[in-house]
């Protein structure tokens, strides 16, 4: 029985490594084949994320609005004096 276990181990690990090893090869090949598609996508993706990042920091607008309000407040104070 123990010898059976050893045989199974050999067979099993061989199959597991063959399977995942071949998978590595296939993934490499498909990555190479699809390189042009992926690169196009990657560029579009980066462009998109950069743009989004910019949209998420509308600090300039906010700062302007705050400036206007604080200005109007100080104007009001100035008026009081």
């Amino acid at each position, binding site marked *: *029985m*123990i010898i*059976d*276990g*050893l045989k*199974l*181990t050999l*067979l*099993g*690990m061989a*199959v*597991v*490594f*063959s*399977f*995942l*090893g*071949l*998978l*590595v090869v*296939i*993934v*490499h090949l*498909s*990555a190479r084949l*699809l390189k042009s*598609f*992926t690169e196009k*996508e*990657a560029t579009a*993706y*980066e462009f998109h994320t950069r743009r989004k990042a910019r949209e998420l920091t509308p600090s300039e607008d906010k700062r302007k609005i705050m400036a206007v309000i604080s200005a109007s407040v100080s104007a009001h104070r100035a008026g009081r004096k």
Partner: protein
Amino acid sequence: MKSTFIFFGLIVVLLHLTCISSIAGEEAAGAGIKSIPSMTKMVGNFSKSTGLLNFIFPSNNKWTDGIGRLIMIGIGILLLYLAVHRQFEPLLLVPIGFGAIMTNIPLAGMSDPGGMLYYIYDIGIKTGVFPLVIFMGIGAMTDFGPMLANPKTALLGAAAQFGIFTTLIGALLLSKYVPGINFDLFDAASIGIIGGADGPTAIFLASRLSPHLLGSIAVAAYSYMALVPIIQPPIMKLCTTPDERKIRMKQMRYVGKLEKIIFPLSVLGLCVFLLPSAAPLIGFFMFGNLMRECGVVERLSNTAQNALLNIVTVFLGLGVGAQMSAEQFLNISTLGILFLGAIAFSIGTASGVLMARIMNLFPGSKINPLIGSAGVSAVPMAARVSQKLGMDADPENYLLMHAMGPNVAGVIGSAVAAGVLLTLKDIAG
């Protein structure tokens, strides 16, 4: 509170009064088959149908049907405690624990033919349907991107399966040298798969090869998966040098949509040509992943990873828990399985780490061996352990995404190993 006690007392008194008063009525009720015996007899019959008496005097005088059930209920509560308080894989261990309690309620017969747990087990687990549906849902939740970006890390997921096979040998050894433990080759294979650190795969294989061990194997698998943050770190530190642990890995490349769509089909293709016996597991896993990545069946993918996955998880857990009857669980074999499971995880972890070190002997970009341990699967816990130990060594070393590569490869590796073990019936003889 006082009134409660008083009421309760009143009822007991009332019950006793009736017992006495109804002796006279004994003959009147003896006519039809469906009539009720005298009050004393009725109360007697009824008390025989309480759980309390059956724990002490089980109907067939087997201790596994008496006090054994009580112990199993305790184990069920322990599982619930681990799940709820320690957050050990609660999604599975809450239903498993509750199922273990319910199956051990005396006289309720919830796991006997006609009982709810029987139907769940018979329809969903014996047939292998539930583990496959769960695998489909996990496929729909899995992003293979990190593995596609750095494919050679998949070999770490292959190496970590070594734990499965050494445990198989360990089970055979135990079987030979420990009296009271008698695992045949199928049992040993089912026990070995605990080292795959993947619940549905373990349940699927055990339901095929050794249904009588299903309960203990599933419990061991999920418990050790939850214990990964405790089991793995010492082994990982033992197998690596401090310098190795500081290796930084370069940022991953962008992985295209088409690559992600082709991938599940490639895996299925390999499975078709190389190992058809793994087709159910790998087929449904990759079907789920294709639904995720193809981008045109989002509503199916969402349902597969949410409503459907949740529904099946509840019932799978209950069905697995239902296999934890005292007779099947309370024996030396279960202890053996728990012991072997710990071995399996440890060896798997070490194999993954050492494989990374071996790979670093070859030219090419270096791998931080800490991500090797993630090859045992236990997604995403094992990858998080790699990340944590990486940051312990170098606070700016982010290994999480790199560890996800071997992590998901480990799921495929376990399914492949399960496929090999499923061919045992054909190989033997």
